[in-house]
């Protein structure tokens, strides 16, 4: 599983970063970026789905 942040849509709500700091980081402006090229380590799939489901801007997508 991989997560992807659409930088055009991200407005820096930081919901993903607070829910899943293992999968996302934030830059100096507070916008989100994926860690590890977006690869989701085993066991963190639920957190990845939570990040998707809580982004107010629909900026995060998952590919299996």
């Amino acid at each position, binding site marked *: 599983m991989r997560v992807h942040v659409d930088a055009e849509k991200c*407005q820096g709500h930081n919901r993903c970063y607070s829910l899943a700091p293992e999968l996302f980081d*934030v830059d100096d*402006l*507070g916008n989100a970026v994926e860690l590890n090229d977006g690869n989701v380590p085993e066991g963190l799939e639920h957190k990845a789905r*939570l990040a998707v*489901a809580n982004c*107010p801007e629909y900026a995060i997508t998952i590919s299996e």
Partner: protein
Amino acid sequence: MADNRHPPVTDFATDFDHTDPTWVNNPFPIWDELRATCPIAHSDRYGGTWLPVTHEHVSAIAYDTENFTSRAVIVSEVRPGPMDLPAPIGVAPPITSDPPFHAMARRLLLPAFAPRKVDALEPFTRQLCNDLLDALEGKDIVDAAVEYAQHIPLRVIAKMLGFPTEDADYFRHVIHLILEEGITVTEDDDERLVEGQALDAYFDNQIADHVANPRDDLTTFLLEAELDGNKLMHEHVRGTMLLILVAGIDTTWSAIGSALWHLAHNPDDLKRLATEPDLMPFAIEEMLRAYAPVTMARMVAQDVEIAGCPMKEGDWVLLPFPAANRDPEFFDRADEVIIDREENRHAAFGLGIHRCLGSNLARMELRVAVEEWVKRFPNFELADPSAVTWAAGQVRGPRSIPVRLPG
């Protein structure tokens, strides 16, 4: 709400007023009814105002920066006047700015409010909360809004800006005038002009003090910042100070107050939070969804039709993010507070390019304030539900919450 100067509303679908006591005390039934009947209402008040109440319409307008300008974001009888900075900068950049200037003014401020900067303020905030709680120990009945919630953002913002904390009473006065009395700094009657000049003079003094004694705070940061290779215009610095004072205090105070009010009359939720601290992040987002304090506003930039409504240039549009957050088309069990709600795409901090600049700060203050209160007083309850009062205007939160502390 005591000094509402407008005639009472009898029909919210055709004559709504967000300062009407019925709305102030409990706006949720009004929005529910409008959502079911006419999802975008119109009122002739304030010279013509529109009110979308579904998540779909609120978000569509928030994203549409071409047809809707942020040049004025507080609905009042007075529209932006000749004393304003011209669009696209506005009185208080970047909240009052439109693209393309908006992005530059916002980018400048974003680093100061990014998560790691905010994390650094957490120990200060936690200590502050504990000092406030120490002062409540031993009392039977306290006011959770007046004696606790309001002080937290006042002191955090004063610290960030590097303003004296002793001036907190003056900040409260200014915020009340702007948000609840509907005053804008552009109004031309004498009293308002005097208030505006006094505030400018206060900012000028702080600026002069920081020019003479630069230090590690947001004021020095603004004075040293550059936009396109130039220092910020003096009016830009003052406008941003005004924005941070107005947007950073009442809002967070309201969010903290609403959360404590909820816990004060929902003992099951209080008990769960006190015994299951892992729930806190979800509970905080749910409080933000259910009791989002901020309704924004836009002005129609050019005639446009939205969902069949003919909006005219210069009309106001209220953007009630709290109503979007209660839309049953968008949220399951939208009218219930579910403190372990895991999927919560709420819009408490707005949507699109104007996402609340201080959202990381507000969320940290709210979480720390609730954590420390619940740790100290795992049992407390409303002392007199009828004595709870709510702020009128576009920022909604309890202004008095008498609670009984366990003996």
